[in-house]
């Protein structure tokens, strides 16, 4: 459920006290607003004690690959598997990990399935990084990326796993990462919401998304992500109705303000003033959002960088370009969901198409931010809710195959925002099945409040690190609900200092 935001309550209480203290009952709206200053009436200023430390990043652009991209076909190069083609995955490697209901009883067992894709080693700022031929553009920005091979989770199915990585809990009801950022840091922009979510087109959109992934759980709903849509109004209900002009709307808002002010005078409720302010912000958004979405000011060079797809609204490329435009306008938190990574059968067909959707645009976003001097202060994250199994699901072929869900290790990357560029972090064993130490020996990370296994990154660690880069101590950003001080990272999470510059 959502409850009343204690910070907001506190602010309003201050507002009210100020009003009473100064005996301002009965003053006109403008006088009241002047008396209070803009600050107290601002929509969302964040918590007073934040940031906890100097932030490295001013904003986040999170490229969420929903469905679980195959680390084995994109980032985690396992040349030794070719010789093991079709062999059963050794029991000691699986070591008791759950197998989903989809492959648990398949007749072929758990046959090893090497990637059919060529990998090339790209220079970075350390020992280099292997990248699949599916991602040629992303490979070209390897020097900017921190590729993490040892992300892991406990959840093995989409709904719990994506809910887990986005909200810190496998079951619904908690605020999303974006809601936490909004609650903690507030907004920088008077004309656009602080948290914007886009859904990019995919040819294989085969998993569900849920409002809860950008929702607020028990926090007030004003921290939820605003959907920026490619169909109809980019923002719900943005356009005036047919037959109503901007001038008409101005006249309406003036009448509305007069009526509302009368109400405020009769009842002395300061919240009325906050509402007048929101009506005005809506009026400004009716200008700022179309301006945001108007790509005609972008140069041909930019379109070349992002690819032709960027001209098609709703494409992943268009979403990335919009993300850059949002970033330029001070929006703090931008998330793009790209579905279709759940390759149970036709991995070659599906991942091929998925990579075409995202590859050039990911690289373009990095280059674009860099050339504008914004990469340093923008944390870009790419990843899904889990990885995919080394064993094949369904028919195993050299040219096509499928892979099941794999929570025990998967690859994500981060760039900019104070993350070390051009490195890799974490390793997996020769099967790409378990996280391993530098000698290839499987690790069994069982993070607790006190301990953490170097070289691993649980999804709570990822979230702790994201918050850290934004100037937030994940253990101190709390919200009390039902008597408990909740955190995004629950009672877990370790900031991965090894990847922070």
């Amino acid at each position, binding site marked *: 459920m959502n409850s009343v935001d204690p910070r907001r309550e506190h602010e309003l209480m201050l507002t009210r006290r100020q009003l009473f203290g100064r005996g301002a009952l009965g003053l006109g709206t403008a006088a009241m607003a002047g008396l209070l200053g803009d600050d107290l009436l601002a929509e969302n200023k964040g918590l007073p004690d934040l940031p906890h430390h100097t932030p490295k990043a001013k904003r986040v652009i999170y490229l969420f690959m929903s469905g679980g991209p195959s680390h084995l076909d994109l980032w985690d190069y396992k040349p030794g598997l070719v010789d093991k083609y079709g062999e059963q995955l050794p029991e000691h490697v699986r070591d008791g990990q759950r197998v989903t209901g989809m492959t648990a009883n398949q007749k072929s067992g758990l046959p090893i399935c090497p990637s059919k894709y060529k990998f090339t080693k790209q220079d970075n700022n350390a020992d280099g990084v292997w990248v699949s031929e599916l991602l040629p553009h992303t490979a070209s920005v390897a020097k900017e990326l921190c590729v993490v091979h040892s992300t892991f989770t406990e959840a093995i199915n989409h709904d719990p796993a994506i809910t887990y990585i986005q909200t810190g809990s496998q079951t619904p009801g908690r605020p999303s990462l974006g809601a936490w950022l909004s609650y903690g840091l507030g907004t920088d922009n008077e004309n656009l919401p602080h948290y914007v979510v886009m859904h990019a087109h995919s040819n294989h959109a085969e998993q569900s998304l849920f409002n809860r992934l950008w929702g607020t759980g028990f926090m007030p709903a004003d921290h939820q992500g605003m959907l920026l849509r490619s169909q109809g109004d980019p923002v719900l209900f943005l356009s005036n109705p047919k037959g109503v002009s901007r001038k008409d709307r101005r006249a309406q808002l003036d009448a509305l303000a007069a009526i509302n002010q009368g109400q405020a005078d009769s009842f002395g*409720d300061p919240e009325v003033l906050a509402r007048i302010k929101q009506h005005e912000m809506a009026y400004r958004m009716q200008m700022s959002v179309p301006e945001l979405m108007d790509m005609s000011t972008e140069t041909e060079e930019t379109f070349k960088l992002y690819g032709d797809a960027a001209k098609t609204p709703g494409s992943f490329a268009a979403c990335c370009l919009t993300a850059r435009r949002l970033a330029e306008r001070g929006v703090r938190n931008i998330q793009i969901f790209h579905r279709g990574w759940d390759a149970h059968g036709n991995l070659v067909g599906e991942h091929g198409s998925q990579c075409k959707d995202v590859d050039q645009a990911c690289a373009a976003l990095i280059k674009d931010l860099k050339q504008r001097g914004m990469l340093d202060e923008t944390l870009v994250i790419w990843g899904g809710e889990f990885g995919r199994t080394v064993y094949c699901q369904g028919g195993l072929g050299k040219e096509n195959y499928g892979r099941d869900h794999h929570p025990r290790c998967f690859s994500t990357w981060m760039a900019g925002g104070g993350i070390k560029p051009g490195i890799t972090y974490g390793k997996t064993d020769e099967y790409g099945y378990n996280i391993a130490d530098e000698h290839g020996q499987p690790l069994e990370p069982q993070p607790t409040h006190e301990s953490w296994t170097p070289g691993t990154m649980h999804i709570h660690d990822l979230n702790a690190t994201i918050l850290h880069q934004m100037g937030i101590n994940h253990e101190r950003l709390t919200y009390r609900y039902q008597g408990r001080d909740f955190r995004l990272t629950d009672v877990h999470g370790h900031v991965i200092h090894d990847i922070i510059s």
Partner: protein
Amino acid sequence: MQSVDFSRDVLPILSNKCFVCHGPSSEDPDQLRLDTEALATSDRGGYRAIDQAKPNKSAVLERLHSADEPMPPADAEKQLTDSERAILSAWVKQGGKYTKHWAFVAPVITPTKSAPDATGSAALDAYIKDALKAAKASLHKPADKTTIARRVSLVLTGLPPELDVLNAYLADDSDSAYETLVDTLLASPRYGEHQARFWLDAVRYGDTHGLHLDNRRGIYPYRDWVIGAMNDNLPLDTFIRWQLAGDLLPNPTLEQRVATGFVRMNPSTAEGGAIPAEFQAKNNFDRTETLGTVLLGMTLTCARCHTHKYDPITQTEYYQLFAFFNSTAENSMDGNSYTYAPILHAPKDQAGWIQWKQIERDRLALINASDKDVRKSLAENEGALTAWNNGGLDEKLALLADPHGGLKESTHHQKAVFIKAAIDTASKEFTTTLVTKDLDKPRETKILRRGEYNLPIGDALEPGVLSVMGTLPEDAPKNRLGLSDWLLSDEHPLVSRVLVNRIWQRVFGHAIVRTPEDFGLQGQHPTHPELLDWLAVELRQTDWNLKAMLKMMVMSDTFRQSSSRRRDLDDPENTLFGRGPSYRLDAEALRDIGLWSSGLMDPHMGGEGVKPYQPAGMWKALAHPGSNTKQYVQDKGALLYRRSIYIYWKRTSPHPMMTLFDAPDRESSCVRRARTNTALQSLGLLNEIQRIEMAHGVAERLLKQADSTEERLDLLFKLLTSRSPTKREAEACNTLLSIMLERFEAAPNDALELLAIGENTRDESLDAETLAAWTQIAVTVLASDPAILVY
């Protein structure tokens, strides 16, 4: 320092700052425990943390102020404030006595000082007035008649008063005028539709399964049953008992079994690859914890993995409570099925329910009336007599109606035939609904280590209750029926308080316990503890009569105060209730008011969730391609204009005009909605199709029912605010009207475009430009604070 109250002042500090280490979840036997008096005062080898005999020797005192070894330790996450340290010191010095947390002690009545013999609304007012008096204040002036008429109508029915009801009330100068108004509102079918909504939030009612595919789920007869139960004023204890365990009652009726949809309300999945045992656990975590929030006002979630850190609830007890739900017969995976068994066939709308309940009453009356005669006439026929004596209502009716049986000559036979035919006819119209049934053999329940479904530990547990809230009554069965006996017993400290607190919240805008979801140690202390207890006892003693409780509340002077801010009382949060309620209306009410005032509202009650206008593609952008809720197919005609409680609730993507105004997603329990204020709400209020269509409807009504601008504005404000416009409001509207008239006359096509919005076609007998201009007035006033707030 003045005397400190352990429960109010001390326990919250101990709980919040100390129990993390020195609380119920401590596993180290040597660790000091501060959660019970015996442990906190025990001899620790020559000293005591709290020494009740020699308070000044208490070790706690020293550690609280120690620079070298402070408590809490210097690196602890939560530190004490100076005033907290002072409270703890004062308490220890006063002897360090413990009392039980107030919410775990059954409520008892403490009569007020000023009016110990008062009853009903007068008693309620006395509790409020005594607290105000202590703050050197008294009740605020009464709200004027129009304001209170609108307020009470919104609180009871979710709509402003009908104009004839309003006018009758305003014209009635008798002392009973207000009571007459209240009685009229309580008798309106709109009452149940409004009151049911709060319960549906709490139990997380939805029309889809919630997880993964989020497919359709057929359970709306439950929603309709709740609305009917509210309108019938089913006593709240019965209301709850049927929902928890209606299927376990002897010869359960259809109503009693449909009510058990409550237990089935948890979100469910059928995701490929999900493991049934995992969801068997998760489904029941959800049920157990929802029970905690809805009826106990407690979070139990912590105890799923470990003994609760704050509240005295052990992990064992959590799983004993869990065990009540763990033996239900449905599969743990929903199969993505609309008819996720067990199901039952039930009436498909409210008219069907009303008819069915009448048939059931007739049947019962007939069986009772005929019993003596039947026994007499079957006295010689032992087989038939046994069948009659052992049969349920269905069997008895069948015997009586059998054209070839021994009772075909009975004087009751014809009536029985008639009722049986009515049942057959009614049943043909039934739809399906999810209900609860237990397995023949209970499922074994064990503690799950860290809440992991695959880590059961220890012996199998019997169902059991939380010992801090009493024991399972001796004769109670160890099933959901027994659970309801425990919850609804006179000794239960929480259920009646929790319920009455939420009833108060929806009447007065704020609850007495401001954390209605948490009455535990970490929750807020009641603003008026004695009032809360009196209300809780009153609820029970009036046989859990909700209408009577609501009537008493709205009849009080406290409710009827003006809601304007006071210069003489600095109480921004209205914790003293020294002014009337004021808050923004909920999403459903905002839409319903527009439908109602435009005359578009379709009064039909119940049925499958309806799908009004919604921007295209919202479901598709999220949904799995295999989901049967990926396409939002907008309804046509009257279905567009049903009351909002009937809007289809897709849990992963509820209607945007609902979520925009803080409606919960119904994936988890919500007993208190936030009331946010955002720019996106402004856009919704002024631009959404149905808002425009409703405004258009209002404008037509104004043009048809009133002749002059003045009269039209008067009618508009009467509808939305129950009063005439103020001078300033009239001026603002007149200015807007002249601007709009002028601009639409200059661009008549714009007027036609505006009026073409929505499916309801325009009345061509009315001048389009005038109608468009008034549409703009109406949409603006519908969005204004006097229309969207309770005050």
